[in-house]
């Protein structure tokens, strides 16, 4: 089962002017994996990327690349390439020379450079754009050039620093699929940084959720979504109802003044926990059969579903439902045991202001 680890971060610590940016990060990335560092701005994800790229050095800890410690090696000697946030294309060079930049430094023959650049232009669907100046291209095209410029060097790892951040929604979705397809076709390891949880869920093999310089959870998109480790992850990935509760015993939890059967165990008896219920997992039932009852405070049409805010006395629930219920009506709420996620209460202060959103 032990797959080859391409990059290993060992106990990386970094601070800027006394503020800790990375708090002893440990992480490994396998070959040909699509790994996403996900977190709000300031969580340290970009710094992690820059440490791997060689643009920053960690205050302590090691970066192991293919079995070698590369902590002290300058960027130009690393077998990684970066796609920068705002592309950082060279304005004094045309598209072709931008892509050929890395190859020319390697003293490759003219024919080989031309062949590779043509292949790349083809790969990113920009055939015939070679002679254009980079400033004359649209954001999406510049983005593709930036990817081509990095990929043409055949790096073992491609680092992408929020590469789609400047694009509009539709283009962003297209590029997400294109990038994923490209990664699978070329078999290159991608390390992707984003604050967009949907982007992370769509593209990644592995998601690393970061917050405050710490890694909160590492897992597949599905496990991160379905089994968030704590309230922050649950709230950051998708929408959730998070309630403080008490684990009465295995497979029985009390929250919102009611006892719910659930499937989690091993928390001990009468342990304080956080309970996550996804809005789409709440069932609207008759008032008489609901585990909790409440009044519908507001209804918003969201396209695929209606989003309702339901006041259940001591708690407020967000519910997604495809059937509309009029505002002000009384409803019952039910959750099947499988959809109740129990998490340890976060020891440190939970970012409450984030939850309030």
């Amino acid at each position, binding site marked *: 089962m032990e797959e080859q680890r391409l990059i290993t971060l060992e106990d990386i610590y970094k601070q800027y002017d006394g503020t800790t940016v990375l708090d002893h990060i440990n992480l490994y990335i396998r070959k040909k994996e699509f790994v996403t560092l996900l977190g709000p701005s300031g969580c340290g994800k970009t710094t992690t990327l820059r440490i791997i790229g060689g643009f920053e050095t960690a205050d302590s800890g090691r970066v192991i690349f293919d079995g070698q410690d590369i902590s002290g090696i300058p960027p130009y000697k690393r077998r990684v*390439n970066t796609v920068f946030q705002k592309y950082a294309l060279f304005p*004094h060079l045309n598209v072709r020379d931008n892509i050929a930049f890395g190859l020319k430094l390697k003293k490759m023959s003219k024919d080989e450079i031309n062949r590779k650049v043509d292949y790349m232009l083809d790969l990113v669907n920009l055939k015939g754009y070679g002679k254009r100046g980079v400033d004359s291209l649209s954001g999406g095209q510049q983005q593709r050039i930036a990817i081509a410029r990095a990929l043409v*060097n055949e790096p073992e790892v491609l680092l992408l620093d929020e590469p789609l951040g400047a694009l509009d929604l539709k283009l962003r979705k297209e590029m997400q699929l294109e990038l994923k397809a490209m990664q699978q076709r070329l078999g290159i390891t991608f390390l992707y940084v984003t604050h967009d949880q949907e982007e992370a869920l769509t593209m990644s093999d592995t998601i690393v959720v970061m917050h405050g310089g710490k890694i909160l959870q590492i897992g597949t998109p599905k496990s991160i979504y379905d089994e968030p480790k704590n309230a922050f992850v649950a709230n950051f990935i998708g929408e959730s109802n998070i309630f403080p509760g008490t684990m009465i015993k295995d497979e029985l939890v009390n929250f919102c003044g009611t006892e719910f059967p659930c499937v989690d165990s091993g928390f001990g008896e009468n342990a304080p926990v956080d309970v996550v219920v996804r809005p789409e997992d709440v069932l609207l039932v008759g008032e008489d059969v609901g585990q909790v009852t409440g009044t519908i405070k507001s209804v918003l049409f969201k396209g695929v579903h209606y989003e309702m805010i339901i006041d259940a006395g001591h708690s407020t629930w967000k519910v997604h439902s495809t059937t509309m219920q009029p505002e002000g009506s009384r409803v019952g709420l039910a959750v099947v045991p499988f959809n109740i996620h129990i998490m340890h209460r976060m020891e440190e202060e939970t970012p409450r202001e984030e939850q309030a959103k």
Partner: protein
Amino acid sequence: MTSFKVPVWGYWMMGIGFAAFVAMLVAYIRKNRGFRRPVFAAPYVLWLIVFTVIPCFLVAYFSFTDPQGNFTLDNFKNFWDSNYNARKAIAPEDLEMYQSMGLSLEDLGLARDSINIDTLVFSLWMAFLCTAICLLLGYPAAHIMADREFKLGPTLVILFVVPMWMNFLLRTIALMSLLEDGGLLNTVLEWLGIGRQKLLNNIPAVQVGMIYNFLPFMVFPIYNVLNKMDYKLSEAAMDLGCNKWQVFYKVTLPLSVPGVVSGITMVFMPAVTTFYISRLLGGGKVQLFGDLIEAKFLSTSLNEWNVGSALSLVMMVLILLSLGLLNKVDPDNEGGGMV
């Protein structure tokens, strides 16, 4: 005692210019039904017309006329040979008489004298040298100041700016007292056992003064361009395999060309026309083209204004040519020069 008079048509021209300006202004205000922003540019435009446009035409006019206002090319011939007018002033029969007495033109001090051209060439050389040295000194300075990792950068910028707040004459005079025989520098040299040197009233002193005065005009355009440059570009270059030196000549240097161009412009132009620095630091021994023109205009003889105008015109044409050339290199004027 100068018999200089604005020609009658000069008054007419000023009158017409002013009237045309007022007419334009009135038309503009009427068209826009009230005062708009460009109206506030009017005082400046007026200033420009009175003190720049008309004088330029006057310089051109004087270059091509003699003191009596007749068309002539003598002023330019005098540029080529500074004794041309003097020789012409002597009656041919007098000249013949002198020559029959065995006196050559040299003896009479009337032989062809290329001092004007020599001075121009020397001035161009001095300006070129000054520009080159300013570039060599200024580029690294600007590069260091614009370095993101160099924390003292902003302090250095202030150190460069503050001396510019002082009048340049004052600065030059201060430099004089530093360089003079009993000055600070010589005291230090003596104390070091090297002995006093002659540091003032020679060509190097003038050059030092020029560099000292014009260096900031090289540093700031380059600094501006480098400072505005996206540092991600150098990171991208490093990422693609450039070492520090390659980053510099493959990315930083090409992208700073606009700043270099406007730096060169802003140093070369004042350097080639400078005249006071050479007088103060050259002790009258070093004459630049600017000094020559100044002397013509301060002179009391009759036609020197016209000759001086011709010299100025030659210089203007040279500067325009070099500006045109530089503009070709930096067509978008990104360096924020004044072209």
